[in-house]
Structures are given as structure tokens and as C-alpha cells.
């Protein structure tokens, strides 16, 4: 069973067409890179795949379940890293994650090792507001994998990560199905077997390791 089956996904904001009839099939364990200019619709698509937003029209099946009806059941299996991390600045990195452990219903013991995994072991007790942008990004990744989701949806996670960002992402994505939006084609090619290019909300095509020619 495919992890994601998306059919004619369309998203309208008023009279603006952010996403236009996008189709997508993703099998378990596959990594898909979504490329495109700013405003092409990457974030819109990823938010729909993460069940953070509903499409105006189209069908979406994730793990065989209808994404618009079964969001509650799906959310424990999806990890989402969005554009804005939304951490609580007054709380430490550890406290932020422990809070989400309670929400996810998972054991708090995982927090320490997850922080180590993403390279935040040193700053585990620093208030999130005092973390650098790159560290906040890592914390967001930690939060997304806390509940061991089978599907990862990552919206430009590499933006501030630094040189070993790609290694971290490779490690995090291993064994999981993943959708990754990025501007960095080299990283896309390294981490993902498949690529999709969006322009003005339309998919220009999805294939294996596309080389985009301007």
C-alpha cells in the first residue's frame, strides 16, 4: 500500500490558486524532494500532506486513510517540520520536548536521547528563545521525530542547519517515508530518490533525481 496517494490536490485562497491539480504517489520508504521557487506552492502542498491544512478540492489518502476525515488517527504517524518552529521561548529545549511528549502520549525518557541525536545535547537546558536559528531548527526536527512517525514532512528544514545538516537529515529520514521541500538541489539529489518540481502551483513532473534545467 502506498503511503501517500494524492489526486488533483487544489488549494484556493480567495481568488488565488496556490496549488493546481497536483497528483502524487509515494511508496513506503521513499524520499521525495519538492523543488520550486518561493511562492510555487511547496509550503501549501506540504501543509496539506501533514494534515495541517485542508485542500480546497482533491483526494488524499495517507496510509490508506482519507486525510480529511481521519486526521486524528493520522497525526500520530506524521512528523511535520514547518516554516516557523513555534517553540516556547521561555521554556528550555528539554521542557519544550517534554511538553510535546505529554501531548503525543509518549514517554519522556526519549527527550534526552532525541536532543543528543539532533546535536542539541549541550544546550538541552537553555531557553528556546536563546537558541540560534539553526538550533531552533534542530529542535523542531527533534520535536517532529519524538513520536517515531512513519511519515516525515519537512518544509525547508535545511535552511539554517549548517554544514552537517544534510547528514542529520539523512539520519533522521532513514527508514521512513519523507517529503522534503528545499531550494538546495544538491541536497535534494543526495537525500531523495525522487523529485517533484512545482511552479505556480502546478507540478511540472515528478521523477527520479531530476536535473532541473533553467
Amino acid at each position, binding site marked *: 500500500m502506498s503511503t501517500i496517494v494524492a489526486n488533483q490536490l487544489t488549494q484556493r*485562497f*480567495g*481568488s*488565488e490558486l496556490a496549488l493546481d491539480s497536483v497528483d502524487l504517489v509515494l511508496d513506503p520508504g521513499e524520499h521525495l524532494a519538492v523543488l520550486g521557487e518561493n511562492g510555487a506552492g511547496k509550503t501549501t502542498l506540504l501543509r496539506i500532506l501533514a494534515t495541517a491544512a*485542508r485542500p480546497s478540492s482533491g483526494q488524499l489518502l495517507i496510509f490508506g486513510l482519507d486525510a480529511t476525515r481521519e486526521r486524528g488517527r493520522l497525526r500520530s504517524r506524521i512528523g511535520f517540520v514547518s516554516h516557523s518552529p513555534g517553540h516556547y521561548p521561555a521554556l528550555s529545549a528539554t521542557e519544550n520536548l517534554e511538553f510535546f511528549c505529554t501531548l503525543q502520549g509518549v514517554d519522556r525518557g526519549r527527550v534526552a536521547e532525541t536532543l543528543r541525536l539532533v546535536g542539541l545535547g549541550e544546550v538541552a537546558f537553555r531557553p528556546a528563545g536563546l537558541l540560534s536559528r539553526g538550533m531552533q531548527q534542530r529542535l523542531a526536527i527533534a520535536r517532529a521525530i519524538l513520536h517515531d512517525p512513519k511519515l516525515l514532512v519537512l518544509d525547508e528544514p535545511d535552511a539554517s542547519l549548517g554544514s552537517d545538516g544534510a547528514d542529520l537529515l539523512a539520519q533522521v529520514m532513514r527508514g521512513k517515508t519523507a517529503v522534503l521541500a528545499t531550494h538546495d538541489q544538491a541536497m535534494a539529489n543526495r537525500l531523495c530518490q525522487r523529485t517533484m518540481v512545482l511552479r505556480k502551483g502546478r507540478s511540472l513532473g515528478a521523477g527520479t533525481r531530476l536535473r532541473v534545467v533553467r
Partner: protein
Amino acid sequence: MTRYTRLAGVAVLLMLVPAALIFFYAPEDYLQGVSQRIFYLHVSSAIAAFTSFGVVLVGSVIYLRNGSLTADRVARAAALVGVVFTTVTLVMGMLWAKPIWGTFWTWDARPTSTLVLWMIYAGYLLLRRLAEPGRQAARWAAIVGIFGFIDVPIVYFSVTWWRTIHPGPVILTDALPPEMLLTFLVTMACTLFLAGVMIAIRYRIEVLMDEAPSPVMAPAAVIAKREPEPAR
């Protein structure tokens, strides 16, 4: 001439019937004199308003249960018509109060609840105008519609309770002689018909606005979306 224009024409012409009855058929009230004649339209407007808001309630509940866009549009249309009739009720109430009680306004249960009603559904309309059109605005407005409808009897009850402790002027309630009753019932029926026609017309407008939102007709929110969000 579209059927809506025809319908509107019929509704307006129909209002001439109660008008005739009110001024030429119904007897003048012994105590209140000529100003009592406002009562027919005042109470009819109030009933039309409450009925409209009842429609909003039903539409809101249906929308929340199964996402029916029709229900949402009906709710929107009925809310606007309801606010119009509430305004009419309030104004007529004030015109009636001045010669009878010497003051335009009292904080009695009925005027107070009607004012609160107006504020609630004005809020409903404002929310729809300001929020980005779509599923969320519809959901939120549905919640406002439901809470508002529940709140009004509670406000009415609270103010009545308050009034038993702090009594104020009492609205005269006489038994109505048959001519007055007939006039009132006819007025109410015609007003309700007018309200229904207005809702139908507004519903059609909502359908058109949904199908082809243009920058001219789109609410402020969509236009605002083109502006960049201010950095916080």
C-alpha cells in the same frame, strides 16, 4: 425581469395590505393613541428578526455537522436580513417609547436583549467580513451564530431577574381586540414573507459572490492577504 425582481415586487406590494389595515382598519388605542400603531410593525419586525436568527442557527448547526455550503450561505443571508429587521425593531421601539414613556430608551429586558441580539449578529457579519473567506470563517461564524442564539434568552432572563430586584417601567400588555389581532397577524405574515424573500435574494447574492470573488466584491481580508504580513 428576473424571478427575484418579481418576487421582491410582490413582497413589497404585499406590505401595502397591512399598511392599509394598520391605518384604516385597526381601531385607535384608547390609552396610547396614534403611536400605538407602531406596535404592529415593531413586533412583526422583531418576530421576523428572531425567525431569521433561528434560520441562522439551523444553518450553522447543519454546516458544522456536514459542511454543507448551502447551509452556510443560508446562514449568512439570514444573518444579514436578521440584523436589518433588528435595526428596524430597535428604531421603532424607540419611536414608540418616546411618546409613551417620555424616554427613547429603557434598560428593560426586551430592549436590552434586542440590543444585545443586534450586537451579536453585527459581530457575526463583521467576523465574516474580516476573516479570510473559507472553511474557517464559516466555522467560526457558525459558532457565533449558535452561541448568540443561546445567549439571547439567557440575557433576557438575566435582565428580567435583575428587574424583579430593580423594577423599571413595565410594558403595557393588554388583551387585543379582534380587529387589532387580525391586523397584527396579517402584518406579521406579510413581514415574514418579506423577510423570506429578502433571505432568498441575499442567498443568491452569496452564491454569486462565492463563485466568482473579484477584488471589487471580495471582503477586505482577501485584498489584505496580498499585503505582506508586518514583522513581529
